[in-house]
């Protein structure tokens, strides 16, 4: 083997080594970049999960506040504080329908639909008190 062949071989080895170093470096940097991206994505997922959990917690707290405000104890207190004077009905105030309310309303609606009278011509609603009927 002569001297120039030796040089050529060493030069080639050097070039290949440098190429290999560059390639390895690139792969390494690529891997690091990829890992960084994985980390960024994972962190953003974690933050999103944390925001969802936070929203769920706030929702739960709001639900409890609403439930507490809807509790009968609070509603009763509000009734007296705001002087609303709301009372449960008693039986004597209730007019019970003997038949089905749907049929009754349908019959009423049909009567109105097939009559020629206009609203202005209709008579006032009948109020019955005991045996007397007042208009």
């Amino acid at each position, binding site marked *: 083997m002569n001297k*120039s*062949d*030796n*040089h*050529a071989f*060493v*030069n080639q*080895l*050097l070039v290949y*080594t440098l190429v290999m170093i560059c390639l390895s470096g690139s792969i390494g940097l690529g891997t690091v970049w990829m*890992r960084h991206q*994985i*980390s960024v*994505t*994972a*962190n953003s*997922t*974690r933050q999103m999960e944390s925001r969802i959990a*936070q929203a769920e*917690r*706030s929702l*739960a*707290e709001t*639900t*409890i506040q609403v*439930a*507490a405000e*809807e*509790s*009968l*104890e609070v509603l*009763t207190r509000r009734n007296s504080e705001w002087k609303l004077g709301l009372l*449960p*009905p*008693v*039986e*004597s*105030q*209730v*007019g*019970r329908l003997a038949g089905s309310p749907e049929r*009754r*309303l349908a019959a*009423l609606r049909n*009567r*109105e639909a097939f009559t020629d*009278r206009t609203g202005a011509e*209709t*008579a006032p*609603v*009948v*109020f*019955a*008190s005991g045996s007397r009927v007042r208009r």
Partner: protein
Amino acid sequence: MARGFGSNYRIVLLVATVLAAFGGIGARLVHLHVIDRERLVTFVDKVRRQIVVEPARRGDILDGRGKFLATSRSLISLGVDPQVLRPEDEPKWPELARLIGLPLRELETIFRTKTRPVAPVATSTTGGLVIDLDGDEPSENTPTERKIQWAKLADSVEESVYEQIVRLDIKGVYAPPRVYTRAYPNNELAAHVVGYVNKEGVAVQGVERWADFYLRGQDGWRESEKDGKRQELAQFRAREVAPSRGYDVMLSIDSVIQHRVEAELSRIMTTFSPTKATIIVSDARTGFILGLANAPTFNLNAYGTVSGDDMNRMRNVAVADVLEPGSTFKIVAASGALQEGLVQPSDTFDCTLERIEYKGRSRDLPREDHHFHHPLTVTEIISRSSNKGAAQLGMLLQEKRLYEYAKAFGFGEYTGFSSIYPESPGIFAHYSKWSGSDITRIPMGHTVAATPLQIHFAMGVIASGGELLRPQIVKEIRNEQGEALYRFGKVVRRRVISQATAKTVAGMLSRVTVAGEGTAAEAAIPGYEIAAKTGTSQKIVDGKYSSQHHIASFVGFFPASRPEVVISVIVDDGRSPAGGTGYGGVVAAPGFKRIAEHLIQYLDIKPTGPVPGRPLFALEGVRP
């Protein structure tokens, strides 16, 4: 080939250096990854690996209409690391103190205290060996003060408040991971039924305890790594199991009815000052409890404030305490005698007798609270609550059958409610152990002890048409989406009497509230047949029946001809404001009536007869 950029010597040197460097790196890698691998992996695992437990959210307890009786919320335990506080944040301290409700001076003390004294080391008594509780080697250089890195500021900060604290941006003020705690939006409502979960997360009583298996859910966990600041490195999450939320439990309790029941109890406590009182409302057809309350009671959100000597207020007396049922027990003797065909409702008995012959021996008949001038029919024995009449019905049945009927009505045995709350089976001795006078005393409810729930469901036998139902309080188990996973239904424990007999007894009981006929005309509601029985039993004080202390009860159902609800009002040692005896008709019946009137509207119970004074006005809905 062209000559290279350097001499042979330089090239060889360069190549050798590069190769040596790679070789060195390789050798180091081999050392780290192969030779020293075990030690390093263990170290890394110890330092970086972590398993984070994610607590499951406990399911909710709902009432029969889906309103929250118990739910979960996350509360934050706020703390501070005084080492990292910045002087520029100091103007924000008053606002922080206001938000967490801590006096500013106290907050400043916490913030400015940077160290705490090291706990004194324990020494053995024998050899004077010093044991460092922290695991450090004892030495003369051991510091006497230690840096505080976490001092608690507030125990239960709400999320909305915490958001405001975060916005203040005070460095060093932070919260560890949240945990779920239990919240009861209705405070005292149905406290004895719902029960509570203590600060350690242990379900202590009530439905919370019974349904803990369904409610608690399953904690999740994830395996990951953390950095030097103990922050999770999300990219290294290895395995992850999501937490599964607990199931919701829907009760048969109706908040509106329960509230009404508790309001009535509160009124009874104020008016009659009893030692305790219980009201139970249930569905006559299914046995589902719509309302159950005891007084005194407690606030579920402040169970910890109940003092040690006041713990009785946490007791569900409706199922745990026993009392003599008194005259409410008369339905047993009457039903048994009718069922056996021994009597008819119109048969009469002399209720003025002082003694009566039974099985060849003369027996004392019990005293009456009222004097009757004429023989009473079986219906009148019930409506006028005759003790002598009940004793004679009992004697017709004789010991064995009376015992069997009482057992069949549920006396002396568990109702089946014990899974929700430890209940008492009551006291009812076998007939072979009865004394000579017991056959005259047991039919009027003496020498028997029963829980209010037993008395209630004994009356429920008449209301349900002769069947003894099991008390039920849990209606459904639901998942997060509200889908029913399991539905509980009516459970018939046994048939006690025939439907016809039950109907006859219901008719007799409906005379109790008729003016001039029964003992509780106060409980009558126009348009509705109220079937009920008063009870007034003397309490045993110092081993003797006391004439001063009574247990008053009013147990019944309505409408008598098609029962919809059963109501029991039991008042222990109530005092009539007028100063008289606290009879069931005086102390308990008015409460029964008020609850019944409310239920008529709320449950739309239609009248069985004409309602006087109605309609006040009626919209006819027609146009002439």
